[in-house]
């Protein structure tokens, strides 16, 4: 599979699992597009710093758009409407996001708020689970907390009726960049 096929499959599968995807082409104003999608979700944002966040100037853009941004501190992400986290990889076969979430803030921001905005470089989509695990096996010490996320949190425990948003987010927006 070529990289654009991988990306297409990834998006199709992620949507099938209940996520939303937003592809931002190179040269586009990524931060503006993300902010436009975030508007209806709330104003308090738990933001985890990362190279990609830096690159697209998301923090400044959020502040400029009058979002209330927290980056650390006691009770981080507990009262936020939206958590923003960069992920390491995408798995095309199942539309899954993968990240080394040893950093506590990554776990909190991607789990506690009702909405999660996941940032992913579009070149980082691999075909399947085996490739994703090989990536971490090759990169030295195995991560302390490796998290795979596919779609929003869900349950079918009452009458097998699919309901989203149990303990984790009810909305997962995957932003694929460049």
């Amino acid at each position, binding site marked *: 599979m070529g990289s654009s096929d991988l990306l297409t499959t990834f998006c199709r*599968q992620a949507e099938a*699992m209940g996520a939303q995807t937003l592809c931002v082409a190179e040269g586009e104003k990524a931060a503006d597009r993300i902010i436009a999608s975030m508007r209806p979700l709330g104003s308090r944002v738990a933001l985890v710093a990362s190279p990609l966040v830096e690159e697209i100037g998301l923090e400044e853009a959020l502040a400029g758009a009058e979002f209330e941004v927290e980056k650390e501190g*006691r*009770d*981080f992400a*507990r009262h936020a409407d939206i958590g923003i986290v960069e992920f390491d990889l995408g798995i095309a*076969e*199942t539309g*899954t996001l993968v990240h080394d979430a*040893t*950093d*506590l803030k990554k*776990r*909190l921001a991607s*789990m506690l708020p009702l909405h999660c905005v996941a940032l992913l470089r579009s070149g980082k989509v691999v075909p*399947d*689970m*085996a490739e994703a*695990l*090989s990536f971490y*096996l090759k990169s030295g010490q*195995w*991560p*302390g*907390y*490796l*998290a*795979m*996320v*596919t*779609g*929003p*949190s*869900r*349950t*079918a*425990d*009452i*009458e*097998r*009726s699919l*309901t989203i*948003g*149990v*303990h*984790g987010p009810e909305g997962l927006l995957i932003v694929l960049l460049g």
Partner: protein
Amino acid sequence: MASRDFQQRLQKALQNPSLRGALERFADSYVVSREQVFAGRDFQALRERIAAIKADAAGRYEELAREFARQVTERGGKVFFASSAAAARDYILKVAQEHRVTEIVKSKSFATEEIHLNEHLEGHGIRCFETDLAEWILQLMPGERPSHMVMPAIHLPKEEVARVFSNYLGEPVEPDIKNMVRIARRELRERFLRAGLGISGANIAVAETGTVIICTNEGNGRLATTVPPVHIAVFGYEKLVPRMMDVVPILEALPRSGTAQPITSYVTMITGPVPVERDGREGPKEFHVVLLDNGRLKMAADPVFKEALQCIRCAACTNVCPVFQLVSGQVYGFIYSGGIGSILTAFFNSLADAADPQSLCIGCRRCAEVCPAHVNIPDLVLRLRERVVKEQGLPLSYRAALRGVVAHPGRMYTLVKAASRLQGPLSRGQPFIRRLPFFDNFTRGRSLPALAREPLRDRARRLAPPPERPRLRAAFYSGCVIDFMYPEIGEAIFALLREAGAEIVFPAGQGCCGAPASYAGDPDTTLHLARLNIASLEGAGADVVVTACPTCAVALKYDYPRLLGRDEVWSRRAQSLAAKVKDFTELVGELGPLPRLQGEAEAAVKVTYHDSCHYKRHLHLDQVAREVLREQAGVELVEMAESERCCGFGGSYTLKYPEISRALLERKLRRIQETGAKVVATDCPGCLIQLRGGLDQKGSPIRVMHTAEVLYRAGFKAERVE
């Protein structure tokens, strides 16, 4: 006989329509969605891989446990090897007390249920909160039992859940599922944030890296292992796999088999302690693993039952189990339910505790088809039954019937002949006994077959002489049902094979194949009958041994060589017999279309085919039978829905669990009636007893015939099949 408690639970479950409705609806949709989610994948190859990985691991748990512990310890975590449930409970309590924990959040873990952890901790003033939605609902309903391994509250209607939530909150809650899930989120979020300790299970544990893997959809696994400052993962040795890449096939199969999902929302891999927030500051979490033995190492050393440790707890086996759909997990009585559950219970609890649960297996083998770890559950259940019988003995009535009569073909013959003369007042000359005095439960919904006036072994002497130059010499092994109840099937077979140019004889001295004894857990009687039948059939000097009963065929082909495997001489004789055994319909398929004597068949009759369990899933001849029927002039084959679902016969099962048997039969009869067929063909005399009995009580004109009878009537005699 089943214990009183067990019988009470069983009756209660069978009389609960909402439980049954929910399980059946799920099971029906599961079959379809499972097929979709595995589409395009090589399921056989996948399960071979998983079986190989898990079997290898089971062969060296202690080595893997040491490696796993070394990895966890190097990262700063602690591993406790718990030999028993009590040792595990004490350790967890000690950790909780050291940290002055008063509240615990739990993410679903079978192992903690197995060791009754909640009760133990609550007894010491520590409150445990289940955080999986269904588990939490059940926790709010004291005395309520989980009905399913993966969906424990599947039996509760939303109105019931609303009532539970209203009680809990002290305010009215509407039965709106979305809103109730929000309530659970809000209430449990508080618990997550306050708890001093999180307890999880594990779906897989990787020795190479010391990693604990947890799959959840709700995200409770992630929160329970992220928010509280202490985490204890509790799981058994059977979760261990050697290498990280071993998790790939397991993660491919587990969610697909469990809930027909390609993957769960969250797959969490935890390796050692990670940062956590404690008193407003970030610091390292305290991480413990309790690796539970509690019978597993003994199981791993058991040459027969080691196989059950391959199980990945997906519950696919119970999802397709026709008995489970009627009784639910609430009946089994222990945390692990279904056939696999009874095997695990035998080792994690005791053999005595497994006695009742194992007896529910009707042996239809549907579970063996879908198990992603390639565990032969029905065969293991039979081996378990043998051990139960060895320990507890056979019930007296079984003992008398099996060892006193069935084991002796001469005695059986005399007794059956006498009974056939005495049955007059019951059968009134009809082929059925429609009501039994004192035992009306057995004849409710199903007439019993009357015994034939003259068994096949007597009739065989009079049947037509062999052709001059036979194409082959066949010996007929009839089995009890054809011999004593339906000799006309044997007559049809004799006539058809002779017409096809084969010589066919009925070897004297043959007796019951032993299957009733095998299914009752009495292999000694089967062994005795195996020797007797081998000697009898060898004497015929035949090229093929023809059977028309799949249960008998399985005994001759597979059980005899296994039972006689240790005896060099008998083992050879058993194998040489097994190689000659051929099912009648299979033989017809090979000989080519049978010649027809006279005239053209009239307009084709609609025939539907019922797959008998052993015929399809043991002998794998289901398609052969359909081809033979399709080639037969005068027959129009129409498929019925769920043709492969068990009819509920199962031999003595009809006597032991008549209500279950009847419920399975009712469903089968509905499917038959939906087809509009005038005839049901099947290749198993046992299914014939069940289906004919059921249709007779309904007063239905639909006829049930052995495939041999269909061929005989439609082709050879050029009669209408009806």
